């Protein structure tokens, strides 16, 4: 009896040690946005623990550099961020405050995903602040293009393989599965959005450029006068004319923006306002990158079919 108890005890200890060592092996990853976190989870599977700083419903331009985020980054093996100055207001404070050499620029634990995509809307000529919250290296909302998600996933798989060569096969396999899943869905999303391609829309902020480029939707104006600058009455009048002249039926805005101006235009012109999540977690249904894109596509198709 005693021998049996001892065997059970030793087995339990062994199991505990095994679980602990498996847990300890996990790569700790901090991402700036929930889309990056979702894709990283798909690629890293059980070998990673992932935490996103921005929540899905937040505007990632304006996150508070809270000390608790420094603690997260202090414990991280890898920092993955969107770049193109999306996080310029707050990320440098977190990196400095984290005091973690691993995640500093040029270190293996530092990954800027904008380096693997082709940025759109790179402003030409000299820039200054009178142009609003302009991004000199291009529009940073590239996560909303499924083709870019594949590029992001590739870069994440490369980085995880570099940091954890032992499990490279798993990361490559997960990457293949992710690409397969995206491509399967992409043809479906394309065929559904094909019905509304070339439809003209007005947006609140230039959040959707990559999505529209991929699916052929025509953005003809923004409610913001300039990026990050609220509209003047004159600009609103111009947008109202644009809506009427081009028979625009839909305004699209991200969930983290105030609906005041879209609703005002809606009341004056009868145009419909569609509020979409710009990141995973923006609405309860958007639990992963796939479900977020599915939600966006469904909402867009419904918006135009109900007119």
């Amino acid at each position, binding site marked *: 009896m005693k021998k049996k108890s001892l065997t059970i005890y030793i087995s339990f200890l062994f199991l505990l040690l095994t679980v602990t060592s498996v847990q300890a092996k996990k790569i700790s990853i901090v991402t700036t946005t929930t889309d990056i976190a979702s894709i990283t989870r798909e690629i890293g599977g059980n070998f990673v623990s992932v935490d996103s700083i921005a929540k899905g419903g937040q505007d990632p331009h304006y996150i508070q550099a809270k*000390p608790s985020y420094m603690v997260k980054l*202090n414990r991280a093996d890898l920092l993955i961020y969107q770049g193109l100055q999306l996080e310029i*207001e707050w990320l440098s*404070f977190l990196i400095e405050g984290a005091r*973690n050499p691993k995640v500093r620029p040029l270190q293996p634990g530092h990954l800027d995903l904008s380096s693997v995509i082709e940025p759109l809307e790179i402003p030409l000529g000299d820039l200054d*602040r009178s142009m609003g919250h302009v991004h000199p290296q291009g529009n940073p909302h590239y996560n909303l293009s499924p083709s870019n998600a594949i590029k992001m996933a590739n870069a994440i798989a490369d980085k995880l393989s570099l940091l954890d060569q032992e499990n490279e096969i798993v990361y490559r396999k997960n990457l293949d599965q992710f690409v397969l899943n995206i491509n399967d869905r992409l043809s479906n999303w394309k065929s559904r959005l094909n019905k509304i391609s070339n439809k003209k829309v007005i947006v609140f902020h230039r959040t959707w450029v990559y999505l529209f480029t991929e699916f052929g939707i025509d953005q003809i104006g923004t409610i913001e006068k300039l990026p990050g600058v609220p509209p003047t009455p004159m600009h609103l009048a111009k947008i109202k004319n644009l809506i009427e002249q081009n028979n625009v039926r839909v305004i699209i805005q991200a*969930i983290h923006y105030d609906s005041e101006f879209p609703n005002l235009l809606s009341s004056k012109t009868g145009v419909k306002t569609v509020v979409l999540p710009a990141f995973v977690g923006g609405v309860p249904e958007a639990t992963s990158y796939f479900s977020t894109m599915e939600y966006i596509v469904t909402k867009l198709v419904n918006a135009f079919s109900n007119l």
Partner: protein
Amino acid sequence: MKLFGILFFLIGFFYPSIHAHAVSKDKTREDIKQLEQRIKKLESRRKNSQLNNISTATGLSPSFNPAISLNGLLLGTYNSEGNDNSSQSNKTGLSVQEMELQLAGNVDTWFRVAATFSMEGTSQFGMEELVGSGLITNNLSLQVGKFFIPVGKHNQLHTHSQPFVATPVSNEMVLGEDGLKEIGFGANYLLPVPFFSEINLQILEGENENLFASTVNDGFAYLTRSANSFDLSDETTMDANLAYAFGDNSLTGTYKTTEVLGVDIRFKHKPLGREAYRTTIWQSEFLTSTREQIKTGFYTYLQQQFAKHWWAQGRYSHSYQQSDRSDQNQYSLALSYFPSEFLETKLEYTHLNQYAADENQLFLRLNFTLGAHKGHSY
């Protein structure tokens, strides 16, 4: 003749379409030609810009210039007591409250420097901060130079990022009108605990005339501080900090050492998502110093962002000096408008209740930032 007629008819019939096709082809060719010319121009411009970049020969490269920013504070003041009293800090009139020039950049892979020069009024130009910092190892960073000493939260803020125009009387009384800035070096260590907890240790020259200013050569001042932050929820954070500094002063005997204590606490509530522009901040700070006499003071304020570009705030500050049992009570109300992160207009009313005649102060201030100024920490 008949054949000629048919040919003429055919040419006449097809000519417009042949001509149109030819014209369209010509137009395409012309377009391509124009595009080629544009590409050549751009390539040549790029080549020229590369030729202009002769830094290898000159040894001068603007690519590595530090980030430069300029902050300006233009102030209009009304004081009910007029300008007769020369010791009065806020006088009726128009002024450049401060201009601040900041240069920041990486010196090399390991060391970063930020220098801030300030000009009060239009003539007094001086160095406000010169801070070098570097990460030594995991969790440990070092700081060296001249910097604001982290006794309380208010003392660490540059003038343009202070929430009110009038300095709290508690800070003026305990740390002096210019606050506590010292030359020295220090170490910051992030403790390996589940919440944010940092220990600062600093060795300082001890130049502040209100507190230290030792005449003895080796009369340094020393500071130890514990800074802590807890997330009460995703939307609410509490910070609690405690700082203690001591050092020799210009006196001898019983009172030759000055001790300073600062305690501050802050709650910040910022809703997630669409309500992100409804931030609430409550912050309080207690300061005391012991020298030949005890000086104490505190302030408490509430700030509310009620729209994307608007903040309203109120503060009460109290100071007390044991020697003459004099105290001051200061009440401030302010309304701020931020068209962007780089521009602010503030209207503030402050009532100062003191042993001398009470003062009613009204401020209207324009605060702008030009250039590559970094955002402010949490």
